[in-house]
């Protein structure tokens, strides 16, 4: 089945204080679809004045919103989930148009997962409780969770609605007002969402401001009227946001990417069965979402005695990937999100070749026919080399896999941890001891064991090392958006006796 490009308005506004408004400066930027480089619509090129308005609206709304009951907030989050679900196909289509990913993924992964994160946090706040401790017979320590107030969230372009749905629900559930800046490559589903749900919330509770990093992102992250910044992106901007937060003594959470190892021990090939089939798919998941995933399993580490046999199966499966029109439900691999990503990925394939890596499959741009010839497509690529090469050390953010072999457990662990990052990792084995010991030895926040690329709500996600800190997609994230108010209560009628 094939869909067509969805219809858009000519231009869209920011969503501030409960209404769509034009940017103060009156300027817009053109947003193009990476599917065929055609114009989608114009979005606001906001500046510090728009940010000031959004921050003011959020501050005006925060006291009343922070005092709503959890029953009320949970009901609203559930309504958001219901509205996204009722319009799932429309969200999926707009996401595919804006990001370039295949409709198969948006229909079955991005949008259903986004819906579930709203429902998860609606459920969490109905079930969790504060705490109270009797310190002695007359003294009670009571912990009440209070919202921070106003939260700034800057999200990336690789899973636009899903990243929004990782960030907005816990912040809102915790009782905060939010100013969200979507990535400038992918402003569309955040806008569509506000069209569908904007009326549900009091004005100022959710504000969405579009624009460029230096013009809108920086004034937002450095604003003295916010109480926290949550950011997903790269390390230099991460450092800058932490610097700005330090001026306001604000907390931050950071998700800054990775270079995730996917490790296959020899026992995966003990039998040619369903599990081996699953393991081969697990290795080919490097191509999922065109490799534009912070946890892309972009380093494939295979034990030497199965290296040739296993790799042959991985190459065979990679060569069966259907790369075609992203609007077609049979397409598995779509377009890279933008021209600069496309150029960057090709540049990495080149340095890989220069460093002596061997191209096992792919290695070039993919030229599709018709209008798609203007889109940004790259062949799924496997490069064989060693772990010190730059293609093994940098997040390429494309469908590019770097593969090498290891001798034993010690070498696998050493290679897995020889990276600046620690976001994700995969471990595949039939050995019961390795199933526990290897994941424990890997310095990463999420180790998938005999699986990969699963992102359910209720399992915490976040980084070690330069991948950042904070744990999303879990109840834990609520505490990154809250203060703890400790009330220390004396029921003793008698004075201390000091004065």
């Amino acid at each position: 089945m094939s869909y067509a490009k969805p219809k858009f308005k000519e231009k869209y506004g920011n969503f501030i204080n409960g209404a769509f408004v034009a940017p103060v400066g009156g300027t817009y930027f053109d947003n193009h679809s990476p599917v065929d480089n055609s114009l989608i619509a114009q979005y606001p090129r906001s500046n510090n004045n728009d940010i000031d308005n959004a921050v003011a609206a959020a501050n005006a709304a925060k006291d009343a919103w922070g005092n709503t009951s959890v029953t009320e907030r949970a009901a609203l989050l559930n309504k958001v989930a219901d509205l996204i679900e009722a319009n799932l196909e429309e969200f999926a289509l707009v996401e595919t148009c804006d990001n370039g990913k295949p409709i198969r993924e948006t229909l079955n992964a991005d949008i259903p997962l986004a819906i579930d994160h709203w429902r998860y946090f609606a459920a969490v706040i109905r079930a969790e409780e504060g705490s109270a401790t009797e310190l002695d017979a007359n003294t009670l320590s009571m912990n009440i969770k209070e919202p921070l107030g106003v939260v700034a969230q800057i999200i990336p372009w690789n899973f636009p609605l899903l990243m929004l749905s990782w960030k907005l629900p816990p912040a809102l559930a915790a009782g905060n007002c939010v100013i969200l800046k979507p990535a400038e490559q992918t402003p569309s589903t955040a806008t569509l969402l506000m069209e569908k749900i904007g009326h549900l919330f009091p004005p100022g509770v959710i504000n969405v401001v579009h624009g460029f990093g230096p013009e809108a992102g920086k004034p937002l992250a450095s604003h003295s009227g916010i109480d926290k910044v949550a950011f997903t992106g790269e390390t230099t901007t991460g450092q800058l946001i932490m610097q700005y937060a330090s001026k306001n003594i604000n907390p931050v959470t950071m998700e800054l990417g990775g270079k995730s190892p996917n490790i296959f021990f020899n026992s995966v090939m003990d039998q040619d069965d369903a599990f081996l089939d699953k393991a081969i798919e697990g290795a080919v998941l490097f191509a999922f979402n065109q490799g534009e995933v912070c946890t892309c399993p972009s380093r494939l580490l295979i034990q030497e005695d199965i290296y040739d046999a296993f790799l042959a199966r991985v190459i065979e499966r990679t060569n069966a990937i259907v790369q075609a029109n992203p609007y077609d439900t049979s397409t598995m691999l779509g377009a890279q999100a933008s021209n600069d990503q496309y150029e960057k990925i090709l540049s990495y394939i080149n340095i890989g070749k220069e460093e002596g890596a061997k191209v096992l499959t792919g290695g070039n741009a993919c030229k599709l026919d018709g209008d798609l010839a203007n889109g940004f497509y790259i062949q799924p690529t496997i490069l064989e080399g060693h772990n010190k090469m730059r293609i093994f050390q940098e997040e390429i953010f494309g469908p590019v896999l770097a593969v090498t072999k290891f001798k034993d457990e010690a070498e696998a662990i050493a290679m897995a941890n020889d990276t600046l990052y620690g976001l994700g990792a995969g471990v595949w084995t039939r050995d019961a001891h390795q199933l526990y010991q290897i994941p424990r030895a890997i310095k990463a926040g999420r180790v998938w064991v005999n699986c990969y690329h699963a992102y359910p709500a209720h399992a915490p996600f976040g980084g070690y090392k330069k991948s950042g800190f904070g744990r999303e997609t879990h109840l834990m994230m609520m505490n990154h958006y809250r203060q703890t108010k400790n009330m220390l209560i004396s029921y003793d009628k008698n004075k201390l006796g000091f004065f």
Partner: protein
Amino acid sequence: MKYERVAITEKAIEVLNQLKSAHGNLIFHQSGGCCDGSSPMILEEADMYLDDSDILLGQLDGVNYYMNQDQFAYWKHTHLTVDITPGRGSSFSLEIPLGLRFIIHSRLLTEEENSVLNK
């Protein structure tokens, strides 16, 4: 003979000059990680806190090019050329509003360059 770790194309210098007149003193900082990671960021010099952990790779038309030492350990055997391409990054890099994005092309240092620069 003097060897360099970084170079810049003529087209990229034109954009750099445009940014200099708009923003004053600038630096390049090589990013890593997710999304726009592995791209060079052009920033106002006063914006970024730099210390001994930031390695100065060279100067491009008067603009210093820095990279964190941890990243440098994996990059030091390569020569970088800053170029410019149409695109839309999503970081705080100053060229983004122009609809352009700085990009890195890399090659291996020659044996001779390597022996001088990484001795």
